């Protein structure tokens, strides 16, 4: 039962589909990156993995659409009609869309091969990196930090390479070990990068001699002001 008391909106938004999307987008981005590398090397399996990347991107977009409460409002067109480079999701939308476009053209054999391959390489890098960035930009979530953003591409690539290994491509084993090693190394560093309270870094940045009349209670998440005179609230305004 929900009521006026407590913190009623917390957790309303988070469902298992969020986790599924993160796995699928990592797999799709990793596979697109792998396909681009195979095309660059002129590998015989490049076309096969391009098709796999296309299917995974399509599946991820389908899941995103299906779980979106706005799926029948068609507002997603605004992702491509607006320019918001500060938003990792804006980058991700373009990264996935252009990966699909360049990958599709490469699979069909249409258009100039080399520019399309480099295009797929760059766009898949964006698709690989944006989910971690989308988490890391939230300064109020202490677990979602820059290291998590850095680890995401390695885990995503590891996921794609693991699938390639399962599909019987022996060349994927050595890079899989490297990707997993890098991800494990970052995972071991991860606890060292956590702060005890959210925004601890910005707390230090905010503290300045001009606001010295504020009393900071250690461990508290609020700054308390006991101004001795009137008008000091203006420093908060």
């Amino acid at each position, binding site marked *: 039962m*929900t009521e*006026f*008391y*407590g*913190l*009623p*909106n*917390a957790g*309303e*938004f988070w469902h298992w589909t*969020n986790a599924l999307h993160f796995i699928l987008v990592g797999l799709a981005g990793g596979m697109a990156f792998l396909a681009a590398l195979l095309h660059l090397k002129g590998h015989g399996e490049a076309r096969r993995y391009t098709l796999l990347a296309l299917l995974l991107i399509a599946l991820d977009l389908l899941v995103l659409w299906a779980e*979106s*409460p*706005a*799926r*029948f*409002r068609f*507002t*997603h067109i*605004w*992702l491509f009609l*607006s320019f*918001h480079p*500060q*938003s*990792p*999701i*804006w980058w991700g*939308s373009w990264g996935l869309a252009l990966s699909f476009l360049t990958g599709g053209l490469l699979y069909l054999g249409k258009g100039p091969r080399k520019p399309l391959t480099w295009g797929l390489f760059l766009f898949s890098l964006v698709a690989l990196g944006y989910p971690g960035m*989308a*988490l890391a*930009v*939230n*300064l*109020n*979530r202490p677990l979602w930090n820059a290291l998590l953003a850095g680890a995401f591409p390695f885990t995503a690539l590891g996921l794609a390479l693991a699938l390639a290994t399962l599909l019987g491509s022996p060349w994927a084993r050595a890079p899989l070990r490297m990707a997993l090693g890098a991800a494990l190394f970052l995972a071991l560093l991860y606890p060292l990068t956590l702060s005890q*309270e*959210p*925004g*601890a870094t*910005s*707390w230090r*940045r*905010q503290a300045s001699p001009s606001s010295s009349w504020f009393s900071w*209670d250690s*461990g*508290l*998440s*609020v*700054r*308390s*002001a*006991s*101004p001795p005179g*009137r*008008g*000091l*609230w203006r420093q*908060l*305004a």
Partner: protein
Amino acid sequence: MARYAMTIDLSLCVGCAACAVACKMENEVPPGVFRLWIRERELGVFPDLTVEFRPEQCLHCQNPPCVPVCPTGASYQREDGLVLVDPKKCIACGACVAACPYEARYLHPGGYVDKCTFCAHRLEQGKLPACVETCPTRCRAFGDLDDPESPVVKALEEAGRVDVLRPELGTRPKLYYLNAPSKRGLTRESEVRHD
């Protein structure tokens, strides 16, 4: 251009939730989600007991973390400081929900993110936000921070203590809590009841 802000005098708030009901009615907020809610915590040891009732809502931050993460520009900040959502552009991706440190946003069943607007539609008609107008103890004040005669500035000037939620994040909220019952100011997040 006005710079809107709100104050809530916690020494006057009795946690009656009239503001929350008024908000629900005014803005047709669906069941199960809230633009405005009350958090409470018992303070002290018998016989020196008190309760902190803390109404919470969107703080219309000066540096809103929810705005830059929006991929479509649906979340935006007006010149008067109000942080609003354009439902026609919102894709309900949840980036702003995750970015808000105050859990002030929720997903509207209509397929977009919604939150407190300081009753922007009422401001255009020259009225006060519904929560301010309804409060039976007059613990809320609303107005222009740049107008020395506005109720919000007067409330701030007369307050013995002024707090904002989680100032360490640098969001510079425009909702100020006055005269918190505890000498330490507002209670920390882990101390507030979550039921």
